[in-house]
């Protein structure tokens, strides 16, 4: 064998095994989630997705709010920002505007995203900036020891705060995302990391605001959610590009159907285009100018 043959063999070997593996996207920080928590499945799916898409870690940023699921950025070896409660989307919006070359992912839970962050959710949907928003929905505030969240059933009475249930209709994330103008709506399950990987890959590649609701059981405060494993099912109609059809599908949905529910190609948010055209500043220089303007 010549040296050239050997080099060729090595290259073939290297080509056969992906250079970036899921573990390359994990940080050394050990998750404090309860063993058996669904969020582990989301972490696994996200790292597999990033490896599959071969996104360089330095080109990815994950931004979160507050809650068990919002600890996600700490467990990843990409850029991360653990923000304040309900503000994952404003932070992600600003980051993407300033650094459009980054793949920006916002993540959090149902309480963070649909309660205190609910208004941001609406406007992120209609703004259609190129972001991916992952909501790990376990229908409970877990970090604060189990209170009803916007997606909790009205008759759930296992919290001392609401011993007779909230009596309030549940927030319908997919329906509200559709009504607010989201261009990509999907639902995955933490117990199916590989299926979730497929959805996350599609969401990240979607040009626009991609919303992925992930059913992620809380084994501590909602142990009955373990039954989701037997209850989830593929969406009956599959993805649609038709808004009216999607509305009908989502309204009839039992909340446990999985898959890409809706996708539409619409114009991306173009904030800064006028400013970009008006000057030759880089994003960092523009940011410094804005700071100088507002910090006088």
């Amino acid at each position, binding site marked *: 064998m010549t040296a050239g043959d050997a080099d060729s063999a090595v290259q073939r070997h290297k080509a056969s095994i992906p250079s970036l593996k899921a573990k390359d996207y994990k940080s050394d920080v*050990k*998750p404090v989630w309860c*063993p058996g928590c669904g969020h582990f499945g989301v972490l696994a799916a996200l790292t597999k997705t990033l490896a599959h898409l071969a996104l360089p870690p330095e080109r990815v940023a994950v931004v979160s709010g507050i809650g068990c699921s919002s600890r996600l950025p700490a467990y990843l070896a990409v850029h991360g920002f653990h923000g304040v409660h309900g503000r994952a989307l404003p932070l992600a919006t600003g980051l993407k505007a300033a650094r459009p070359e980054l793949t920006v992912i916002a993540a959090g839970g149902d309480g963070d995203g649909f309660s205190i962050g609910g208004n941001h959710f609406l406007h992120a949907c209609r703004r259609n900036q190129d972001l991916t928003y992952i909501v790990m929905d376990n229908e409970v505030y877990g970090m604060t020891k189990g209170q009803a969240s916007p997606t909790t059933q009205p008759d759930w009475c*296992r919290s001392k705060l609401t011993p007779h249930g909230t009596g309030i209709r549940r927030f319908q994330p997919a329906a509200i995302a559709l009504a607010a103008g989201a261009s990509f709506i999907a639902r995955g399950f933490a117990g*199916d990391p*590989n*299926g979730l990987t497929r959805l996350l890959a599609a969401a990240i590649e979607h040009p626009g605001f991609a919303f992925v609701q992930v059913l992620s059981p809380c084994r501590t405060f909602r142990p009955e959610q*373990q039954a989701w494993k037997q209850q989830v099912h*593929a969406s009956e109609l599959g993805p649609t590009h038709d808004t009216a059809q999607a509305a009908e599908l989502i309204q009839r949905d039992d909340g446990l159907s999985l898959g890409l529910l809706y996708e539409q190609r619409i114009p991306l948010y173009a904030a800064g285009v006028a400013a970009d055209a008006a000057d030759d500043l880089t994003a960092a220089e523009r940011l410094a100018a804005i700071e100088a303007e507002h910090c006088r």
Partner: protein
Amino acid sequence: MSPPASDSVIESVAELLAHALELEYASQAHYEQLADSMDVHHNAEVAALFRRLAMLSGEHAAAVAEHAGDLTLPRIPPWAFNWECPDAPEGADCLDPDVSYRMTTAEAIAVALHNERRGHAYYVHVAATATDAEARTLAAAMATEEVEHVALLEAMLTDAGGDQQRPAQDDLDPPHMPA
């Protein structure tokens, strides 16, 4: 759930090795995750066990990669592997109801045993269904190796008193919920 793979039959040694590699990586990742979890929850004994299992899976992955040599393995998206379950057989289940921060060594071994048996069943299945004769032979050899892993874990389980119930102990951090 994961969509069914377009072709549920292994057709080549390269395809089998790609699956074996993914299986071992998933196994390693899962055991590392469990070890980290047990560390965080101060269950040092079980953490050490999972750490050891992760190391063994890493060694198995290295052995598979070495076996692959200069063979070009197909690049298979995570959702397109031909598993019978949502994740790789030894990658186990992130929602495993048997996993707890208070789990004993015996319970941890039982979880690992379950995973290894699924891994064994997978290779037996491939040995019976692969369309390529060489892949069937290799899968049968891998199944034999898995039998050894299962036997090792069974012996460990016996040593750890696998039939014993978890000793009653106070949960120092219980969820505060109404009865």
